[in-house]
């Protein structure tokens, strides 16, 4: 923080770096604040469902009243990646579609997590051919993989809880580190 002459008067000037550093120090020093932020993140997923195949049925079943992932705070699917922090890749991804998935991932704001839903997204599944991406982790980073063809809703809920546990122990800055 520096004092400068601005328009004839004295003013305190804060750079973006200093502002970020302030928040990061606050989080790093204070375990309680970090835990509180993590608690907020883990119970308020805003997912972006990238649904391409039959796994979408199980996704809908999980969203429905019987299994109801709203109990875990994942109440509202957002249909714009800019409003989402959890990317759910539900179904087979082919090479032709890979650029779209990469763009959607890059459009999401930090912090963001990715769930690979079903064997096709996780490894290509039985589509071991020229057309299919052999696991989406070759094009975007993945936090949790759900096996199954398609996975049962219980498996989806288990994955959601695993992701919550992962976020609970995370120590990431409140603001993302943006390269200048």
């Amino acid at each position, binding site marked *: 923080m520096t004092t400068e002459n601005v328009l004839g008067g004295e003013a305190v000037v804060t750079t973006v770096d200093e502002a970020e550093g302030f928040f990061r120090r606050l989080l790093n020093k204070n375990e309680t604040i970090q835990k509180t932020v993590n608690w907020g993140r883990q119970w308020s997923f805003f997912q972006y469902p990238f649904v391409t195949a039959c796994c979408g049925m199980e996704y809908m079943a999980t969203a429905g009243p019987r299994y109801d992932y709203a109990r875990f705070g994942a109440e509202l699917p957002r249909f714009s990646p800019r409003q989402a922090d959890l990317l759910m890749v539900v179904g087979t991804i082919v*090479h032709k579609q*890979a650029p779209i998935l990469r763009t959607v991932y890059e459009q999401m704001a930090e912090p963001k997590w990715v769930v690979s839903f079903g064997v096709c997204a996780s490894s*290509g599944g039985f589509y071991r051919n*020229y*057309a299919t*991406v052999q696991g989406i982790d*070759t*094009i975007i980073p993945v936090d949790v993989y759900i096996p199954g063809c398609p996975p049962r809703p219980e498996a989806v809920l288990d994955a959601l809880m695993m992701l919550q546990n992962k976020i609970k122990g995370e120590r990431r800055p409140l603001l993302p580190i943006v390269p200048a």
Partner: protein
Amino acid sequence: MSKVALDRLLEKYPGEVISSHADHGDETAVLKPAKLAEIALFLRDDPVTSFEMLSDLTGVDLLGLKEPRFEVVIHLYSLTKRHRIRLKVPCLDDENPVVPSVIHVWKASNWMEREAWDLYGIKFDGHPDLRRVLLYPEFEGHPLRKDYPMEKRQPIVPPWPGRQHL
């Protein structure tokens, strides 16, 4: 089962049919490619055959099984007569397989011929816009050919740092 359509075709173009069979109503004619467009027009417009509908058009790769290697199979259906016929057209040149397009007879063959070009590399002489329909333009080769390497991948997105395409 009667084989009205096949008999009519044999009666009209005996020199163009290489072989034919009709087991249990499954009427099939193997045709020489040269006059395919003319025969197709005849099969559609003749009152006895009147095949108004093109059910399907696909390619086949018979590498190591048969000579010549590539074949185009056309399935026709008559909505008024309610009978079917299957036409098989071998492509004479293995290196550069070409058959006449039937797009001026049945418009439905447009995307089907593009698909056969995309996946088998069979060219259709007379098609106005023969480019890939399913795969991306950057793709090289024709993946349903039997000599296309099974493990060959052609990703268009570079791998995420630390990962590799399998």
